[in-house]
């Protein structure tokens, strides 16, 4: 028998009482740890699940909504097969704050398994990152920002999955709680999807554990991530972080691909699932219960890295690089041979292997045995069923009143532009992402930095393309969580459209503070409203996601509301892709958007040290019409380049389009734009025209194509001819010209110090 205190679990007294009542006895130590994991926020979504129901999850493109380890979106057909993109999104925030390299690396490792276990080939990862202030080279924040990137790089590069999208923001509100979100994407034929449940007729089938030998690492990981971080507990927290092994994972993935082929040849339906939170217990219980079965597991069969592990550690510990198969016994030997002999798992890592650990049962019980004793025996639905915490929440406070003072900066435009370009949210990300392999697998069309979304040609021999973009702006979130959520969707969708893709669906990772504080839960609820509203408007359903709460330190400081969104796009013919680099002098530049006198959340105001509550609004009907125009113009090859407006607004977008032309072997292409107030017809001031972050795009159209483009754009509002491209290496606004090389230097430098 165990007690909650001696077992060091996070279950609350009322939850413990409920368990004892249901069991009709005191729970064993193993059972305590099992419920601790299953009923943690991380696994159960107990305080968030009912709010998540607001999100739209259905649509034409949805092959599999948010029910299993990953969602699946239809991206197109080839040779009579429907192809799906498998997508999953997760956070590894707490571990990354404590041990950034391992924490971030295991984030990539875990999300990749979520995609792999759907029967998919893993084709890409992405990494939305939020770090604290990195100016001090000796600070923990700098260490976190460097270590997390190195961990993502080391893991993703080694397994051979390209990192094609991501973003990074730096803010003091992330000093004590970084956010390391990870997205993974796979490709699968609809006819070959493998589900995360024991299929029909699986009674008596084998439960096969495959991967790394179980060790004591990652014990208590699920409940660790469902508590606030306390620096004093750092030492014990470190033990809850798992240890990554990308070398083993590389082999495990390839061996699994071989097993997929074996199953296809025999047209067999089986179950496959990643071990994440709750370890062997969580995975085996869920894969069996989801099929309506029970499970009986013999913990003595588990391959261990060290002898003498307690049964609760074997059952619930979160050793990385493991998955579970549910297989008909007649093929088990063949599958074991693929892993253990053909791919030699036991020689790749100590005692790694595939091994039968139990049986799928008819009885709805979850039973664990250890050294001949039954150490757990519970109703499997009680263990894996949903639990719910109805917590009170408060509406977020109304943002500060608008600052009506006129925007007189007293700063010259050139200095302002340089300060905005050097801002930590704007400056070049290349020093960071050049550490990621964004071209391995040879399918990359648009690598990191070349467009607003990463683009792949994922099906060899077909013209199908897939795009991936991520977004989530903490500067807006600090002002208005709901609008921040809407902008996250709008920006991710816009990123996909800017490369010419058709947005097909979304994933979200919701990073918030302590749900037991009404104001934090209120932010969560408000953000969900925004996520639901924007996704409905864009007809882009959510097919997977993750909730990360308790991003709060013991001192009570929490992250700003951080709804982070990834958008998947599709191309029937990836030849229609558009990159952001300007192509030639003599083109006409258009702004497609909606000028607004709303600088709230802009980098400009941050640079000027001002606060202003008016966050740009999104006109969804207008945005939809503009997105259709950009995609059609891309499809008929009228766009030489395109770039979304994001951090820093229009003038930064123009700089980012011109900078790539400074590379050796290219002709520099500059920009001449008209006086901003002219093209906005006085609707907004100069600074607002240049720096407001209102969304929209800049596109480059060859002079010869202007008539065709304007013909397409005839019925669409908000298309503004703003200037031309030139053969001078300058960004010229009316009669002021700023040297492109100098601006490029200012923009390139800041992150080089952190990521040399």
């Amino acid at each position: 028998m165990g007690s909650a205190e001696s077992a060091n679990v996070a279950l609350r007294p009322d939850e413990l009482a409920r368990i004892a009542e249901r069991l009709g006895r005191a729970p064993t130590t193993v059972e305590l740890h099992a419920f601790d994991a299953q009923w943690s926020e991380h696994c159960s979504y107990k305080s968030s699940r009912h709010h998540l129901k607001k999100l739209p999850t259905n649509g034409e493109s949805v092959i599999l909504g948010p029910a299993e380890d990953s969602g699946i979106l239809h991206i197109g057909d080839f040779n009579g097969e429907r192809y799906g993109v498998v997508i999953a999104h997760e956070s590894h925030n707490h571990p990354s704050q404590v041990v950034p390299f391992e924490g971030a690396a295991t984030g990539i490792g875990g999300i990749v398994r979520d995609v792999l276990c759907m029967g998919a080939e893993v084709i890409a990862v992405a990494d939305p990152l939020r770090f604290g202030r990195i100016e001090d080279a000796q600070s923990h924040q700098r260490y976190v920002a460097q270590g997390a990137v190195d961990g993502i790089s080391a893991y993703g590069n080694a397994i051979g999955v390209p990192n094609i999208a991501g973003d990074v923001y730096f803010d003091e509100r992330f000093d004590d709680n970084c956010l390391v979100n990870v997205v993974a994407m796979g490709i699968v034929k609809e006819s070959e999807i493998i589900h995360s449940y024991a299929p029909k007729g699986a009674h008596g089938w084998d439960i096969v554990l495959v991967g790394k030998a179980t060790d004591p690492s990652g014990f208590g990981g699920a409940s660790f991530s469902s508590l606030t971080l306390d620096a004093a507990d750092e030492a014990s927290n470190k033990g809850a972080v798992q240890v990554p092994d990308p070398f083993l994972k590389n082999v495990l993935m390839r061996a699994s691909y071989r097993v997929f082929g074996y199953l296809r040849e025999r047209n067999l339906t089986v179950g496959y699932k990643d071990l994440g939170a709750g370890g062997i217990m969580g995975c085996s219980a869920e894969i069996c219960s989801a099929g309506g079965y029970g499970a009986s597991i013999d913990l003595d069969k588990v391959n261990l890295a060290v002898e003498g592990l307690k049964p609760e550690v074997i059952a619930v510990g979160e050793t990385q690089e493991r998955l579970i198969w549910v297989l008909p016994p007649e093929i088990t030997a063949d599958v074991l041979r693929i892993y253990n002999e053909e791919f030699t798992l036991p020689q790749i890592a100590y005692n790694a292997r595939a091994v039968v650990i139990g049986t799928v049962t008819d009885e709805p019980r979850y039973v664990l045995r250890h050294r001949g004793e039954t150490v757990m025996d519970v109703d499997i639905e009680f263990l894996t069923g949903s639990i719910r915490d109805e917590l009170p929440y408060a509406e977020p406070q109304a943002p500060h009143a608008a600052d009506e003072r006129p925007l007189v900066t007293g700063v010259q435009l050139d200095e302002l532009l340089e300060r905005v370009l050097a801002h930590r949210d704007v400056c070049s990300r290349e020093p960071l992402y050049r550490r990621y392999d964004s071209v391995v697998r040879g399918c990359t069309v648009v690598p990191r930095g070349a467009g607003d979304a990463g683009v792949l040609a994922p099906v060899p021999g077909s013209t199908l393309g897939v795009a991936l973009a991520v977004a989530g702006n903490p500067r807006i979130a600090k002002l208005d969580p709901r609008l921040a959520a809407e902008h996250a969707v709008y920006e991710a969708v816009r990123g996909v459209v800017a490369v010419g893709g058709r947005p097909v669906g979304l994933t979200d990772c919701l990073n918030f503070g302590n749900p037991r504080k009404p104001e934090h839960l209120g932010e969560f609820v408000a953000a969900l409203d925004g996520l639901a509203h924007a996704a409905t408007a864009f007809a882009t359903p959510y097919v997977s996601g993750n909730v990360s709460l308790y991003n709060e330190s013991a001192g009570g400081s929490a992250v700003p509301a951080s709804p982070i969104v990834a958008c998947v796009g599709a191309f029937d013919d990836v030849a229609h892709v558009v990159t952001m680099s300007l192509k030639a002098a003599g083109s006409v530049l258009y702004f497609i958007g909606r000028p607004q006198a709303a600088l709230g959340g802009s980098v400009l105001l941050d640079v000027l040290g001002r606060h202003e509550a008016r966050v740009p609004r999104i006109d969804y009907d207008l945005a939809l019409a503009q997105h259709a125009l950009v995609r059609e113009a891309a499809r008929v090859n009228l766009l030489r380049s395109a770039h979304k407006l994001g951090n820093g607004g229009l003038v930064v977008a123009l700089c980012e389009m011109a900078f790539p032309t400074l590379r050796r072997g290219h002709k520099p292409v500059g920009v001449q734009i008209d006086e901003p107030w002219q093209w906005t017809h006085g609707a907004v001031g100069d600074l607002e025209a240049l720096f407001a972050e209102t969304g929209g795009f800049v596109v480059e159209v060859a002079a010869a194509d202007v008539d065709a483009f304007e013909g397409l754009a005839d019925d669409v509002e908000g298309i503004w001819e703003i200037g031309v491209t030139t053969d001078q290496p300058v960004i010229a606004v009316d009669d002021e010209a700023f040297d492109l090389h100098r601006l490029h230097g200012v923009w390139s430098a800041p992150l080089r110090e952190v990521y040399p």
Partner: protein
Amino acid sequence: MNKRIAVLVFPGTNSEEETLRLLRACGGDAHLVHWSNAKLLPKFDAYVLPGGFAYEDRIRAGAIAAHDEMMDYVIEGAGAGKLVYGICNGAQILLEAGLVPGTGDVRRPSAAFTRNGPVPHFICTHVHVKLAIDPQRSPITRGLQRDALVPAWAAHGEGRLAATPEELARLEAGGHVAFVYAHPDGSVDASATPNQSALGCAALVNREGNVLAMMPHPERDGWTYNHPDRRGGNAILAPSGGAIMFRSFVQAVNA
């Protein structure tokens, strides 16, 4: 009948599929051979060692893999004149195995592809490599023009050629530096080299010309869709760019 090419998969290799795909698109009869099937290797006519992190790059990239059983067969085949082409991690393995420059004892490397400079970090960046030998010097480069420029991706943490000054002088004098990093216009200076590799070296060739070890990946720039800013028209699925390197190799194998 076409000659058969083995694409070797060590534990940790990660670029085998795209390497295989482009070899086949360029007319090669290529097949993957995994480490547990090493004994199949003598039946093949040529070997390609793709990129990755064989044996986790323990000790030094390629150092452990050079002692894998598969390399026994590659060393034997190279000695018998079979063509061997290593890319990235494959290049590191060939150097650690002593097959390039091939002037000393087997598995006693005289140089190394080691940690990048000036900072010892992995970098992923598009590059061009320029043929620095007479195309006729190696069968593998015979299909290329003199001074040919091959677009490719450098994606490695250990790609800097390092050796004693005497050894570097021997490599240069012996015509072992097969490719150097270059700017897109073909000009060559130190700033074209992304990793401070000695002599700007991007690839080494052995004395006989049948073993080529190249750090950057032409196969990642091997299709029109890999270079969306450079392609003409809409032919998105044709081998192009870095494929000239694979074509030249396959031609040499099938010759």
